[in-house]
């Protein structure tokens, strides 16, 4: 690649020089030849005029003294001029006085018309030039010279010129070639040097190399700039390497730090797992405890309840009024306790008796709930409507419980009007949001959190029945389904209970 680049610059330079030389030569030669061509006729005429002049001068005496022999003598030298075909001297009256003819035989001369009136002149007759010149002696015209010449000499001269031109042309071009091949080095040499250096640097990536400045011109400037560029590249290269090393160091440190952090985190995670396990265990224990406790509590409670009732039945009117009242209180309290324990049981059963999730059709669950609550709905003349409900992975029994509690509450805590309850459902990202809306008595915002706690009641048992466990159970069910439950409500403006059921893995 380097070689071909070199020769093409050399070729270009040589070609330029040759072209310039050739054009200049050509122009000069053309000008020269054209000038010659244009003026050769004039040159011829001038030449012949000179001869005629000389002959006239030389033959004047012969003319006036009527010596034709002498006059012929003046014409003899014309033989030397190969282009002169014929010549003649005329007397004053137009008669031929002396003549010359190149081939001696042909007397091509005849007295031209009106010789007396003729002045000096010439004309071209075919391939010949004919010239007349008066012979004047002492202001008096004594005769006329006539010369006829062919144009061969001029043609020969012209062809000689052409030959010389061609010869000079070729020689000059040769010389131009030789000289320009030597001189092109002045330009191409530094360029080649620069190209070689550039290539070696690019191949070996050795940025310490520099090109030498050989000439004081734009190429020299180029080389200097090139070297300057290399300086910059070199310094930047070293800077880069240094930065890279520093970076590597930093990366090492960071990695070490990260590894450490990772180990620490792992440790923390393990601890977390452990505590989670512990918590789970505790939770399970607690649930079991709650279950067992409430289960075990049932038996003595039943004893108290049943025997109190027996007492009430058998001795109702045998004891005094206070005793009746006391018995009533005992029975009532025992019953309440049973209910409380039952509720507690069912609360804890949410966790312990939870079934694995199955595809659950919420619509049909709702239908079942309405059937279950049928009598209540009829009695309170409630209107229950709903949107389309999806099918999701859930515990069917618990969902039933959930809806039943919420709708039951909605009917129970009715306002002055007829209960109107609407159930909605909509999908939001990875969960479904359900709502149970009523036009009941509403809940003051300060209690929106408390109502979901166990046994929290906002009303006395005289106002509204219930143990206050319903919403707590709802919350536990919803949380088992990885959702959340909350309320939007204001006193006298109805309530909207929202809960979410998250999607378990794939959509249904």
């Amino acid at each position, binding site marked *: 690649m380097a070689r071909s680049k070199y020769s093409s610059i050399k070729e270009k330079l040589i070609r330029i020089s040759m072209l310039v030389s050739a054009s200049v030569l050509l122009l000069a030669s053309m000008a020269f030849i054209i000038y010659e061509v244009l003026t050769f006729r004039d040159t011829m005429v001038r030449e012949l005029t000179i001869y005629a002049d000389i002959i006239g001068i030389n033959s004047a005496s012969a003319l006036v003294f009527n010596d034709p022999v002498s006059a012929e003598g003046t014409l003899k030298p014309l033989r030397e001029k190969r282009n002169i075909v014929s010549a003649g001297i005329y007397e004053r009256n137009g008669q031929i006085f002396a003549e010359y003819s190149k081939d001696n035989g042909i007397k091509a001369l005849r007295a031209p018309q009106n010789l007396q009136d003729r002045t000096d002149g010439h004309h071209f007759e075919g391939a010949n030039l004919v010239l007349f010149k008066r012979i004047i002696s*002492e202001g008096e015209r004594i005769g006329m010279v006539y010369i006829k010449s062919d144009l061969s000499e001029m043609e020969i001269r012209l062809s000689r010129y052409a030959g010389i031109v061609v010869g000079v042309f070729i020689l000059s071009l040769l010389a131009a070639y030789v000289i320009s091949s030597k001189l092109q080095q002045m330009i191409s040499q530094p360029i080649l040097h620069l190209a070689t250096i550039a290539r070696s640097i690019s191949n070996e990536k050795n940025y310490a190399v520099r090109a030498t400045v050989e000439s004081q011109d734009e190429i020299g400037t180029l080389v200097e700039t090139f070297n300057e560029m290399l300086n910059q590249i070199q310094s930047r290269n070293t800077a880069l390497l240094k930065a890279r090393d520093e970076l590597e160091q930093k990366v090492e440190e960071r990695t070490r730090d990260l590894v450490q952090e990772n180990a620490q985190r792992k440790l923390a995670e393990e601890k977390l797992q452990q505590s989670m396990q512990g918590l789970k265990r505790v939770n399970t224990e607690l649930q079991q405890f709650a279950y067992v406790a409430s289960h075990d509590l049932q038996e003595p409670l039943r004893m108290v309840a049943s025997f109190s009732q027996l007492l009430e039945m058998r001795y109702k009117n045998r004891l005094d009024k206070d005793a009746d009242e006391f018995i009533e209180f005992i029975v009532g309290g025992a019953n309440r306790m049973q209910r409380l324990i039952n509720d507690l049981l069912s609360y804890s059963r949410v966790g312990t008796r939870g079934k694995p999730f199955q595809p659950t059709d919420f619509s049909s669950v709702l239908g079942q709930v309405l059937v279950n609550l049928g009598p209540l709905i009829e009695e309170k003349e409630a209107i229950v409507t709903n949107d389309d409900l999806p099918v999701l992975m859930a515990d069917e029994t618990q969902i039933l419980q959930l809806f039943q509690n919420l709708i039951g509450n909605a009917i129970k805590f009715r306002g002055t009007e007829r209960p109107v309850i609407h159930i909605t459902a909509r999908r939001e990202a990875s969960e479904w949001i359900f709502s149970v809306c009523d036009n009941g008595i509403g809940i003051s915002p300060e209690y929106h959190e408390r109502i979901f706690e166990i046994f929290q009641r906002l009303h006395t048992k005289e106002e509204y029945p219930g143990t206050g466990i319903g919403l707590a159970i709802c919350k536990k069910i919803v949380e088992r389904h990885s959702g959340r439950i909350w309320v939007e409500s204001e006193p006298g403006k109805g309530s909207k209970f929202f809960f979410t059921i998250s999607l378990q893995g794939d959509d249904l």
Partner: protein
Amino acid sequence: MKCRLAILFKSVLLIMCFVSASLSYGNPAFAREEQPSETQVKAAFVYNFGKFVEWPPDRFVGKYFTIGIYGDDDFAQVLTEIVAGKSIHEKPILIKRFSKMEDIAGCHILFIGYSAKDHLPELFNIVHKLSVLTVSDLQGFADRSGMINFKIVKNYMRFEINLKAAQQAGLKISSQLLKLAIAIK
């Protein structure tokens, strides 16, 4: 028809020739129409000699170029006719006739006629102090101290030149003239 035209044409031509011939009679410029006489030729030559000779500058002041004639009145007449209106060396020509030898003075060329045939030595005596070109048709003129004498050779008018005599008189004769001379002494 054609014949008649031809005849007409030729006769017109003839008349024209005759007319031009008669017109040219006496005009020495058309010498070919009419053969010039010997005297005329000599006169013409004498006139022309003047063109090819150089006089010393001190002798060449003056308004006229003078040609003197001694001893030939016919020649004088003819010469006067021939040189009418002409000039030599840019000077108009003046003809002087000399009847007596002693009168000869102030001329550039002197033609000596047959009457001086026997008095040549005295003549040369008078003229040799002057720069005069002496011309004559007397035979042997140039052998004596004369400068140019005419000689008819084969029907051609020729002349002989005594160059030495001319040089002694301070005259320069052009080579153009010399080359035409049949003899040079």
